[in-house]
């Protein structure tokens, strides 16, 4: 049963298919915003199969790290999808502290990108890797503070399923003032975690070609793209389950997911790319200060 959960339903296959479709919605809406027609619905599947059939070029140094890095990211995203899905499906089987495990696992795709880029021994890839490191350092602080507000609001619960149950009884955490501040901070951190505009400077096509992914070809590139598309499913579901789960029926969750997807795409299409120092200043300045105010509000009960 656990293997079914890992490989088929909430885990790998389901998340991959939904992620590719969500990523198609992103490309289609982007095209419509720019008055274009946009690709057909199977575009991401065609890209994935095509990349699997291409030649894989591996640099001479760091062969092992270069090839293991994409799999590391994919495995951690699959684990997060399984943990989240199982805490909805089998509440009794989740373990204490899975919220903290999920926060750690959500950092690994970025670390995998940094490792792969560093192993590819390309100067532009190392620029991309250094930008990604700075970006991780920037957005992790407000993200963890936002999750800390959730833990404070729910009275010290660190099991995802307990937080969902708490919200079913006393309303979603998003409804309170501190919860709303935390939700906005978490959405902005999610945009950076996904590597979307305005925080896509590690893959900036116009200045450093494909940045961290420049030396990747064929199947490893397909795995990196798939990891990113799966994150587009996993991160909104994580935010819904800890902030906005007053009614965890399937219809409501799908509706909330669509709303969050629209928010992500709108942020992506209405902003220019910021420089890495601007991103760091943005996350450590206004967003972190707002989160600290949120923590204080949560402590005094708002």
């Amino acid at each position, binding site marked *: 049963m656990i293997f079914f959960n890992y490989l088929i339903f909430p885990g790998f296959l389901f998340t991959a298919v939904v992620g590719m479709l969500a990523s198609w919605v992103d490309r289609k809406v982007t095209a419509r915003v720019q008055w274009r027609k946009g690709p057909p619905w199977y575009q991401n599947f065609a890209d994935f199969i095509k990349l699997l059939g291409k030649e894989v070029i591996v640099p001479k140094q760091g062969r092992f790290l270069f090839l293991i890095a994409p799999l590391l990211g994919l495995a951690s995203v699959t684990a997060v999808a399984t943990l989240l899905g199982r805490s909805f499906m089998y509440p009794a089987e989740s373990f204490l502290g899975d919220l903290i495990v999920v926060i750690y696992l959500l950092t690994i795709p970025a670390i995998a990108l940094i490792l792969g880029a560093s192993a590819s021994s390309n100067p532009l890839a190392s620029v991309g890797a250094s930008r990604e490191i700075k970006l991780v350092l920037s957005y992790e602080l407000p993200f963890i503070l936002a999750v800390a507000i959730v833990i404070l609001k729910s009275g010290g619960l660190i099991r995802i399923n307990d937080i969902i149950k708490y919200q079913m009884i006393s309303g979603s955490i998003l409804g309170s003032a501190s919860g709303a501040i935390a939700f906005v901070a978490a959405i902005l951190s999610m945009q950076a975690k996904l590597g979307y505009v305005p925080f896509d400077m590690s893959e900036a096509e116009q200045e450093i070609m*494909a940045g961290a992914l420049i030396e*990747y070809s064929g199947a490893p590139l397909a795995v990196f793209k798939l990891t990113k598309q799966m994150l587009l499913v996993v991160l909104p579901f994580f935010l819904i389950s800890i902030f906005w789960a007053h009614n965890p029926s399937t219809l409501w969750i799908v509706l909330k997911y669509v709303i969050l997807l629209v928010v992500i795409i709108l942020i992506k299409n209405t902003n220019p790319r910021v420089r890495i120092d601007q991103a760091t200043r943005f996350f450590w300045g206004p967003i972190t200060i707002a989160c600290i105010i949120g923590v204080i509000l949560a402590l005094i009960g708002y």
Partner: protein
Amino acid sequence: MNLKLKALTKSIWVFHFAASPCNNCDIEILDLLTPRHDVERFGIQLVGSIRHADVLLVTGVPNRKTGPKLKEVYAQSPKPCFVVAIGSCALGGCTFRGSYNVVGRVDEIIPVDAYVPGCPPKPEAMIMGIVKLLNSLKGKT
């Protein structure tokens, strides 16, 4: 027709190599991505790295500086990688033929799969060139 080839024909990622052109062909290539022609509806994307490319677009006359670079870039591409020569310069040298620093046509340096003549070729002509390339791929197997 097998699945791999079908996926390849539906998702062409293009890398643009400018072998010292006069930039007219480059502007026409960029026109393909604008709302009027929008080649992304066929899955065609412009990529920044040759490692991601399926098709190498070459514009301009290869000279003593860009000729060796062109050979190197082609060697760096993951196979299968197809080459499309765009514009009269890439096809035959045009007005620069016989000049002191020209090393030859594009197909004397790397194998070329499709030719799009014109100075500069219209975006419609380039789409037709890609369609002919894809049809020849489908016909091979």
